[in-house]
């Protein structure tokens, strides 16, 4: 008999001692059709996944805990839809005093009784004691750092699955400690002896569960602050995980961010394995920033034949290549639109720039690739995230830069540099085209104006129009209705620029403001947006001659550093 459960407070060991197999539900995908037919698009995505998973079948019963609003409603919906099955919800107290323990013990007893009634399974205190003592011997200590060198990350926040942990490792972490509700955070009090009766042993178990390190759903969470201290003493950085439409954890993130000076990166997922590409970039950049690379580009002395390197930025809209010589002179560059095939586009951009520099592929000693497509470039010697590359490139162009605002086609990001040009912090907008190049592109189409003409057109604006919708889809219909109201195109465009600017400022303010500023990416060419941003921050924003090339330039500089490092060795 297989029972699905979700929460660490579920009395799993007790059920196992009654020979009931318990499996934690880890949905791998969400059927939005099912979720919307039975609930609403705005419930937590993990819950939508569980709903999908349970409907798929394979469980004889489900045990939930009244964890949160989404789970409470999941219970109601499952109870209604799966009439033949045992759908059970434990009423877990939020406090951990003696009375709470007694309450939870009663809840567990009721659960046991239900299993007896439903399936004829009996509970035996001595079996349980025997089972749990062997289990405890085998368990060992989880979440204890192994003490080896390298980058150690803690993952905190909303539940994470094993694939997210693997992803952190893929992104460069050497060790990952899981402090979410899927990590092992139980601490058992010493077992009562074998003669303990049913009531005693269930109370002991209820107490051990309820007094383990609390999740954010609990009312008394002071112990999480102690946990945080431990974590900070033991790891290099914290990856703070939140799940879409789960709010418990953003409060703690906000607290840590404002009160602890410790490297922290917030990521949001839907619990399943979507959006890996973007995540790995962000986590990779975070790990890179923890390693704190050496930034000084030492210009090598002249040799007989100059070393030549290349940087290639494979973005979602364009593929850019920069060729540098060892004195950091740009020999050539090229920008081609990224077509259906990343590799073809990369080949095209690379051969174009070689031709312009008048060299052959053999002349290039090292190539660093960056951007979304970086892992797919077959001829690159090394891959580095675009965050690090943008940092390098911008710092190289102007060493006063402390903040880079990059608005690309699909995403926007803000990167903070220290005096030495190291990336010390950054934020990216998550999976939403609001405030990106794509947003302006859609609006340009709706307004029937070429994208590159928008900045110029906005100068003719006379009236202030406020575009309130943040989401691209809604903003588009807002623009269409403004056209219908006969509003001037220039005014609408100015309104759009302001909307992109305020979204960007929102992102910037998550890091705090610090000049000098540089803007990179295609949107930097739009004077209207740049001015709107300048106005809001009351500071000048530097725009490089080729704002789209900064990533590729940074990659080329990194390539040069690689060569230099090899020579030193």
């Amino acid at each position, binding site marked *: 008999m297989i029972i699905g459960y979700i929460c660490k407070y579920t009395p799993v060991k007790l059920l196992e001692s009654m020979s009931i197999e318990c499996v934690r539900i880890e949905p791998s995908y969400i059927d939005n059709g099912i979720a919307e*037919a039975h609930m*609403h698009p*705005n419930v937590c995505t993990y819950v939508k996944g569980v709903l999908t998973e349970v409907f798929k079948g394979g469980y004889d019963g489900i045990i939930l805990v009244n964890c949160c609003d989404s789970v*409470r409603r999941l219970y109601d919906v499952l*109870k209604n839809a799966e009439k033949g099955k045992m759908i059970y919800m434990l*009423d877990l107290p939020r406090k951990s005093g003696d009375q709470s323990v007694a309450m939870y013990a009663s809840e567990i007893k009721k659960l046991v009784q239900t299993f007896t009634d439903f399936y004829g399974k009996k509970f035996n205190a001595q079996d349980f004691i025997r089972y749990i003592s062997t289990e405890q011997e085998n368990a060992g200590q989880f979440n204890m750092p192994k003490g080896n060198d390298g980058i150690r990350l803690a993952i905190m926040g909303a539940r994470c699955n094993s694939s997210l942990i693997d992803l952190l490792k893929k992104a460069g972490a050497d060790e990952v400690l899981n402090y979410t509700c899927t990590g092992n955070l139980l601490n058992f009090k010493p077992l009562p002896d074998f003669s303990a009766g049913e009531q005693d042993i269930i109370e002991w178990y209820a107490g051990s569960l309820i007094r383990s390190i609390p999740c954010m759903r609990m009312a008394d969470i002071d112990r999480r602050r102690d946990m945080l201290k431990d974590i900070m003493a033991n790891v290099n950085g914290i990856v703070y995980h939140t799940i879409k439409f789960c709010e418990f954890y953003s*409060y703690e993130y*906000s607290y840590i961010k404002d009160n602890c000076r410790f490297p922290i990166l917030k990521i949001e997922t839907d619990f399943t394995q979507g959006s890996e590409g973007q995540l790995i970039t962000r986590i990779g950049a975070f790990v890179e920033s923890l390693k704190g690379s050496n930034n000084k580009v030492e210009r090598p002395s002249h040799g007989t034949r100059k070393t030549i390197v290349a940087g290639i930025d494979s973005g979602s809209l364009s593929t850019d290549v920069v060729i540098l010589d060892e004195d950091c002179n740009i020999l050539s560059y090229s920008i081609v639109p990224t077509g259906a095939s990343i590799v073809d586009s990369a080949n095209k951009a690379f051969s174009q720039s070689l031709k312009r520099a008048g060299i052959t592929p053999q002349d290039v000693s090292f190539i660093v690739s960056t951007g979304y497509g970086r892992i797919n470039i077959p001829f690159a010697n090394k891959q580095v995230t675009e965050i690090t590359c943008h940092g390098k490139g911008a710092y190289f162009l102007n060493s006063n830069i402390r903040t880079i605002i990059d608005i690309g086609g699909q995403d926007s990001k803000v990167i903070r540099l220290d005096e030495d040009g190291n990336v010390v912090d950054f934020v990216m907008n998550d999976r939403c085209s609001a405030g990106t190049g794509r947003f302006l592109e859609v609006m340009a189409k709706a307004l029937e104006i070429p994208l590159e003409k928008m900045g110029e057109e906005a100068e003719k604006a006379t009236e202030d129009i406020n575009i309130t*919708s943040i989401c691209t889809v809604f903003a588009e219909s807002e623009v269409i209705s403004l056209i219908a109201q006969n509003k001037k195109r220039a005014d609408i465009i100015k309104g759009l620029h302001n909307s992109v600017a305020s979204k960007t400022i929102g992102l910037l303010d998550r890091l705090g403001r610090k000049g000098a500023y540089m803007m990179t990416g295609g949107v930097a060419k739009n004077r209207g947006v740049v001015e709107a941003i300048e106005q809001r921050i009351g500071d000048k924003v530097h725009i490089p001659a080729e704002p789209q090339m900064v990533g590729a330039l940074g990659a080329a500089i990194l390539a040069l550093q690689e060569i230099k490092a090899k020579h030193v060795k």
Partner: protein
Amino acid sequence: MDLVDTYARWIKKNVDDPEMVRKLIILGLKAEHAYFSLFRDKQVPRSFNYLNKIGVEFILNPLIYRDQSAWVNLFAPTEILHAMDIYPLCIEAFSSFLVGFHCEDVYVDYAQRSGISDTLCSYHKGFIGAALTGLLPKPKFMITSSMLCDANISTFRYLSWYHHIPMYSIDVPLEYSQQSISYLEKQLREMVKMLEEATGKKMDEDKLKDVIKRENKIHAHMNRYIDALRYKCHPTTLTLEMYMLFINHTFMGTQPTLNFYEMLTNELDSFPHSRAKRVFWVHIVPFYPNALKRYFNYSHRYEILGLDLNFDYLEEMDYENPYRTLARKMLLNNNNGPYQRKVDSIMSIVDRLQPDGIIHFCQWGCKQSVGGMMLLKKALDERGIPFLALDGDGADRRNHHEGQINTRLEAFLEMLDK
């Protein structure tokens, strides 16, 4: 309209000067209060004019008498505060007033920029923003219950850490049992001790009993009102419906609330028979959307009979055992426990009021209500009662899409008209 916009512009310009904004808001509220004391809105019954006046008064008091105020959520047992002469400031009510002043966006954004999730209910985000910017004067205490939604404990704990102000979270179990009653009762007593320490005031149990006695009277009036609503009608506005929500919870058991219900039941006989299409509303109602105002405010053609949240507990309470009876009230509230309890209570009010249709408002970020909505729809479908779900946000205009609400609402009303 334009006056409010100018006002909103002033407020937004002064966000960095919270004292100034607070003054502006208090001034605005006082003006509104004076207005309702002097002039009558002739389109709604007298009692509702009184409701408007006390609604404003209730929000003003904690802003003015800040050192005697406590922050609460809608389902906090404020009877205890009234007995101790402490002024409650309710999250949901204050955020609604921010919307009234057209300045909720800056406060919602402020909360989001501090790292608070954008999918959190905007009533909470607006309040958090107002607290973090210092617009809200620091209270003496905070009380929240785990009932209804998750946001409560999280928001209050966050703010209590931020401001270093004592708070109490009341953990309300889902099921009614002797054990859960005493668990709750014990918490209430513990809370009163903390309140006494934090405010220096003493709890006088006789006063608490008086509050509950008044509450019983109010419940009786409410029952009469519901029975009259079966046939009668009176014009109202969405704003007044929201005021009712606040007096029925945060100000339950107070003298002004009792006055209002007495006035109301005295007026019942004079209300005309209804010939309108009558809609019962589930969950909170946003008061600003034009589409809703156009059809429901002062209308004789379409009426809102009330919100389910307003009729969530109408039992006689045992005032001799005040703590126990308050514990019981929380446990047996229609919104506590499984969703089926809510469905059942809506069905019983449907039997009493016989509405022509039901509208469920899906508040942005409110998972406890939207998550079960399809179950309610199913139950109503079985009874052949028309159902409409509207998505939107009562506390942040930017999540409201006028066109979308308008089309859906019109189509629904056309359906009812047939």
